[in-house]
């Protein structure tokens, strides 16, 4: 069992408040990813959980036991660091057994646990080597092995893949996902990489400026972002935002006039919207089609197109000087400066009010 509860956690460095009241519930066996831009407090939150930072106020509870002021070693947590933080003068075996030896564990137990971890991580041939004789991926595995041997209740990962090259990162990402299944462990993972967040997480926690913006499964956050920040943060390429004004309101839809003069009608629960209120329409690259200029009221010019083989990302400048990203198939052909029309999939668009909060869709509310 490993249920972690965080209640109203606050942390300040001097006058600067890093965490401004975090409430979070992490269930047993969950893979939770903290994601957010640099300086959002995600690493501080993780380090507070680990006990490496003293919190200013609030509570951290593991299985209903208060651990807020406990020493790091007594919390039954293990952490994998960004720099791996292997002990340079110890062999791989010694690195992994260090915690157990400090805990005065039986020698045979230590050796069984280490060889078990080495087997899981395929480190057996490297056990007698020193960290400096290992490649980045191998060091990463040793760092994970060091965590595994302790059989902690919760694994903490602090941007563990950011020092690896792209190919290795994909491979280690898969291995981490597999490890989560095999060990059946509770894991908390900090990253600024949304791909890692989307692919690994059972639950994503989006942080911004010391606050939790939204918590949910990756798809929930992708499909139904609670506000403009989450909408813009998740998704690659980013969601495009078109400012506009409400011109007409109906029971289940809202008509918005965009800066370029084009009007779009979106399904939305319009209770707290008024005629004339400023809103933002958010639309993902895959929810826009390129059509002939005559077929749509929203027109513009093709800016740069990035061809990735499988897809082509087109950056479009509308007549109202808004920039949009459109995802087209890989064989899509266009030229810089082409005049084009754009058609939005209105059912998939997101509407945000002046404060940046998402306006609920009527269908979702019913469901």
């Amino acid at each position: 069992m490993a249920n972690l509860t965080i209640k109203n956690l606050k942390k300040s460095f001097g006058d600067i408040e890093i965490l401004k009241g975090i409430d979070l519930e992490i269930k047993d066996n969950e893979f939770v990813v903290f994601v957010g831009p640099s300086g959002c407090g995600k690493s501080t939150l993780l380090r507070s959980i680990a006990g490496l930072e003293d919190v200013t106020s609030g509570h951290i509870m593991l299985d209903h036991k208060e651990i807020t002021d406990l020493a790091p070693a007594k919390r039954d947590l293990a952490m994998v660091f960004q720099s791996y933080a292997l002990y340079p003068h110890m062999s791989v075996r010694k690195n992994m057994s260090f915690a157990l030896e400090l805990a005065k564990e039986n020698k045979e137990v230590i050796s069984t646990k280490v060889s078990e971890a080495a087997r899981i991580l395929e480190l057996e041939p490297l056990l007698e080597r020193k960290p400096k004789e290992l490649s980045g991926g191998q060091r990463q595995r040793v760092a994970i092995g060091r965590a595994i041997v302790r059989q902690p209740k919760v694994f903490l990962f602090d941007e563990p893949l950011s020092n690896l090259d792209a190919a290795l990162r994909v491979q280690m990402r898969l291995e981490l996902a597999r490890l989560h299944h095999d060990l059946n462990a509770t894991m908390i993972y900090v990253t600024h990489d949304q791909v890692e967040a989307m692919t690994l997480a059972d639950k994503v926690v989006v942080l911004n400026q010391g606050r939790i913006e939204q918590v949910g499964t990756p798809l929930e956050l992708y499909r139904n972002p609670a506000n403009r920040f989450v909408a813009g943060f998740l998704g690659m390429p980013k969601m495009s935002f078109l400012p506009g004004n409400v011109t007409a309101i109906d029971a289940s839809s809202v008509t918005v006039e965009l800066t370029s003069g084009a009007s779009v009608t979106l399904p939305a629960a319009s209770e707290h919207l008024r005629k004339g209120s400023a809103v933002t329409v958010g639309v993902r690259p895959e929810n826009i089609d390129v059509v002939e200029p005559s077929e749509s009221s929203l027109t513009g010019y093709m800016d740069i197109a990035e061809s990735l083989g499988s897809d082509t990302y087109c950056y479009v400048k509308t007549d109202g000087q808004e920039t949009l990203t459109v995802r087209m198939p890989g064989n899509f052909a266009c030229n810089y400066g082409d005049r084009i029309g754009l058609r939005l999939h209105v059912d998939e668009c997101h509407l945000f009010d002046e404060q940046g909060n998402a306006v609920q869709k009527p269908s979702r509310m019913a469901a």
Partner: protein
Amino acid sequence: MKTTALNAGPVSSAAEPEKDSRKGESKKTSRINRFMVSPSVLVLALWMVIPLSMTIYFSLIRYNLLYPGDNEFVGLENFQFFVTDFGFMAGMSNTLLLVGAVLLITVVLGVLISLLINQAFWGQGIVRILLISPFFIMPTVNALIWKNLLLHPVSGVFAAIWKFFGATPIDWFSEFPLFSIIMIVSWQWLPFAILLLMTALQSLDQEQQEAARLDGAGPWALFFHLTLPHLARPIAVVVMIETIFLLSIFAEIFTTTGGGPGYETTNLAYLIYSQALLQFDVGLASAGGLIAVVLANIAAFFLVRLIGKSLTEKQ
């Protein structure tokens, strides 16, 4: 004497790879290269060869300044005389004791003090400068400060402390002469150890420490398993450099005890000085100098074998 001999090593060893790497190149460039480096090689060779050969020559003749003109060849008599002299064994053991004790004190205290001042505290900058400053004081001045202001049995600070507690002040230089010298030299060289170890501590990886804390390491385990291995290299550097300089400690002895009482604070460097300039026996002093050179080279050989290996090893 010693410095000339130590120079001999690098000069001859640098010449060897030079020969090898020249092989592939055209004869003309190699000739020009040789021509260009020859002045400095020549100067270095003269610098080393002339004093060395003069020392060897002096060591083989009878050469006492009190008996000019009486300079006949005596073979190895000077060497035999020097080695069998009572002062030689005393000088050897005092040299070893002095070097060993100062190394021990500076390394142990150096590690502890640099750990202490590595913590953040108010006035850290000033304290660091104060800790480093003894290194900038000239050895003679240092010895005089200790002799007249600190250890003096009547007017010294230590005597005042002893009197304050009602104890009889100690006459340090007559009761514990070698220990007094060790104190003085340690005070001079401790800043050097602190300087090196302090900078090394700043490069100690924070995440490793945090990882160890999560692994359950307390302050002792952190020190023995992380800090000390991290400091192994700078400690090796401190030991090596200090050994080179401590073998030839002279000013501190000259200004305080003058080698006495008896031979109690006479090290090899001081013994050679006393042979040459107190007893005016240049031949005997030259023989002693050559013996000291050989001993220094033996020490250097073992040091390089021991420590050089850990220094060249990649980390």
